[in-house]
């Protein structure tokens, strides 16, 4: 899915996922429904780095334990950044 007019924080998330993942995907190739681990190659330790980098970039505390445990897909990650685990699109 190609998104236009991306929010800077979600665009940064997309770039970080592409950078950290071991699947060789470009940011634009990341789709909402992709699983962070299986599809994007973000293992458990890289996931820690991902959330720390996202919080550092935003200078805010985005995540909590309850939320983190529910993040399975890129879409879930975007929803967490948006402030909850409700339905959300990554744009």
């Amino acid at each position, binding site marked *: 899915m190609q998104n236009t007019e991306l929010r800077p924080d979600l665009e940064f998330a997309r770039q970080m996922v592409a950078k950290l993942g071991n699947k060789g995907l470009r940011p634009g190739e990341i789709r909402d429904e992709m699983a962070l681990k299986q599809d994007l190659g973000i293992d*458990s330790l890289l996931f*820690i780095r991902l959330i*720390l980098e996202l919080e*550092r970039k935003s200078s805010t505390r985005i995540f*909590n334990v309850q939320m983190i445990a529910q993040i399975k897909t890129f879409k879930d990650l975007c929803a967490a950044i948006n402030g909850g685990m409700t339905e959300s699109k990554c744009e």
Partner: protein
Amino acid sequence: MPQEFFDGWLQTIKSNLPFRPVPAQEQRLDELLFELNEDPECISLLREMDAAGIDQAVLLVIDFGLAYKNIELTIEEIHLAHKKLLDQSDRFLAFSNVDPRRGREGLDLFEKAVREWGFSGMKLYPPCGYSPDDRSVFPYYEICRELHLPVLTHIGPTTATLPFRHTQPQYVDDAAFHFPDVNFILGHAAVTHYQDAALLAQYRPNIFLDLSGFQTAINRDEFRNVINWHLSRGLGRKLLFGSDWPIHRFWGKQRDWVEKVTALEPESLMSKEQIDDVLGNNLLGILPRAERKRAKHGT
């Protein structure tokens, strides 16, 4: 959880990160991991058990009182905190742990816990500085034999601030040999030192393997291979589901962990009967009869 235990755990996690966190990130990671362990009334656990269809969970006391200084609660107070949870809900079972170096007083506390306070098994934590085959533990095993209580002993590495000596499966063998009527559960040993543990479980009828910590095997894509290893050795009735709450809360919820096991059926790795055994029946078979309540799934 004692601060020193927590500090060692943090050190280990940070040393394994594939990047060098800046100080602010280290501090943030500390906060998140501390939050992970904050559920003293088991409210979050119960909520997750409901969502996962888990009827009952076994809570484990660990006596850190001789291994660390500055423990806030006495070992008796820790037992009473667990007793309070047992009194409040039939969703919990609890295993007692008293460091065997506490002498007669410690043995009396253990006996009170299992005879009067409703504890239904014994936990051992050898990283605190003793071995499961130490003769000082044998009087505890005598009580377990009399009351048909299982013994769950930790296997494998733990926090960096405790020694790993005596955490290999082999240290359970002498106890299991001398107490053939006591069932020994090797905590994490379906996934840690699992080849040695499987050999013991294969040849000692009273040795069982707990799956807790299998989340790490899932993260490494090793879970199917590990399960295959055990099933190919006829250990389907020796495997016990466990989630190691709250350690792996970062990576998923209780429902996720149950689903990882139930998913083995459509993947043709385990039958429905085997999965039911792993999720509850195997444990129910070794609990004292009075504790075999209506539980189907344990953790």
